[in-house]
């Protein structure tokens, strides 16, 4: 595919998945990969950055004798997500309009 996905957009997608409920790394990766073609080295840095910026928080729960790390969106993360949603709609509509233009000059 020709188009690259920018960081803020990917951040928003991850936050959107988390806004539906907390998730652990593997399940979060699978959810995103259902829709986006990302590599296995992509998500870890995204999550670290989102945590550093306070958009998500991290907690652990024991699971089958080990600890499993979960990611949860924060209120600040929700605010950021809402903003990004608005920005995306504007961007997407603008591109749609342009792409729909007939090439009148042949």
């Amino acid at each position, binding site marked *: 595919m020709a188009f690259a996905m920018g960081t803020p957009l990917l951040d928003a997608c991850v936050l959107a998945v988390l806004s539906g409920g907390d998730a652990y790394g593997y399940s979060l990766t699978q959810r995103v990969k259902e829709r986006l073609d990302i590599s296995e080295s992509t998500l870890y840095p995204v999550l*670290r950055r989102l945590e550093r910026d306070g958009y998500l928080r991290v907690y652990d729960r024991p699971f089958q*004798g080990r600890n499993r790390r979960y990611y949860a969106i924060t209120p600040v993360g929700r605010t950021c997500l809402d903003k990004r949603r608005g920005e995306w709609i504007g961007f997407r509509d603008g591109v749609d309009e342009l792409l729909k233009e007939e090439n009148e000059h042949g």
Partner: protein
Amino acid sequence: MDKRAYLSRLSDNLERYVPDQERWDILRWYEEYFKDAGEENEQAVIQELGDPATLARRLAEERGYGQKRRGPRMWQILVGAVIVVAIAIPLMALSPLAQLMGFHRVYDPVEFVTTVPVQQEPAPEYSEQVTVDEGGVDVYISAEGVNVDLHPEDISSPSVRTNGMSTDGDNLDWGFDGQYLYVDWYGNGESDQKAAGTLTVAIPAIWKLNNVSVYVDGAGDAAVSDLPPCHELYVDTEVGNVTAKRIVGVSDYLSLHASVGDVSFDGLPASGGYSYLSVETGDISATLYCADKSIPYDLSTDVGTVTVDGTSCGTSASYSSGSYEYDFNAWANVGDVSLTFDPEAVAGVIQGEYDSGITIIGTFPPVTVETAAFDLTQGSLTASAEELGGSALYTNSEQIRVKVEKTGEFQGSVMLWDTENSDSFIRIQDVDRGNAAVTFDGLSAAHRYRVTASGLEGAMVTVTG
């Protein structure tokens, strides 16, 4: 190659680019990834991840460590840790943390203890499902180094007052435009001091609310009470207590959080979504009124106790959402969890797996559930490799010794995790028949760790501290 070999190669390559802490965090991420994919998918995951050297380089670049390592950044982590400790120590008086810090508890198998139900006055009538109309007021309070008290009063417009602190423009900025009430209190920048006083925000009792947020930065308590129905409620403080009283009308999302301090709550959960009560260091106490439908509660503390009085709960049916396994999650990493429900009132079934590894299914009797950190100063812990990782270990020495017993040849590894530092992965040692006893040296005394075993199914492991 197998998973261990892959992670080992990944680790070696990461070492060239990133500091140790980062490397351990990355390894932990992939270790968990492998585990969650399942043993049967180990090779598929290895294919997916690709060459470990390439993966390491890509990870390093994404995390901004493109060049080979210049030097450790542990100092940044250490400074951060020192600041947190400096804030925590003077605030010990907030909760019985003193008891917890001298916490010595010998490991007992978990016991169910029947307690006598408490005589209750009839529970107040609360509606089962809160519906919040559109068009309510948003309340946003942000305060630094001061206590906050938010509650409704019989007034016609909102009021903001303090108990004697100056409210000139430098400290206080607030306004209400008909839909959005904001209150900002600017502290003096010394947010690790005791709270300067109390900021009281009173809203008209007839208001409809949309979202309510109360954030306290630095030191200060946050108290909300008797709020009219709203969509979302967030109350958050860094160092202080969060108290939420008679909160019965949250429809979507409820979150009460303190980093260091106690959270106490009485009321109904958020009827359409999640209710989170969480602290890192401190106690949680909740008096819950459950409606007919069970709604997920998540109460968790890293170091502290969780006490729940659910004797005013009505029926509580099971709840599931995708892969989430809990209905009612009450968790203390190190500390006690105590839940009390009245079997007369709970006509249904609470199903779910408690994070202490206990499953409670069936008519719900009053139970007291205790979890404890295993105290290695009282003796050694012997457990199967599978069960080993479940509890925290408390050691007084700077060394933890691990001995593996298994018939026949074996080859695996034992790993050490730092429970007090977000359960981060610290060390790994390989074990096999010829080298079945290993030692983790240079640890912190009076600290909590966890030991897990990998590739040692069927082995018995003995840990001494």
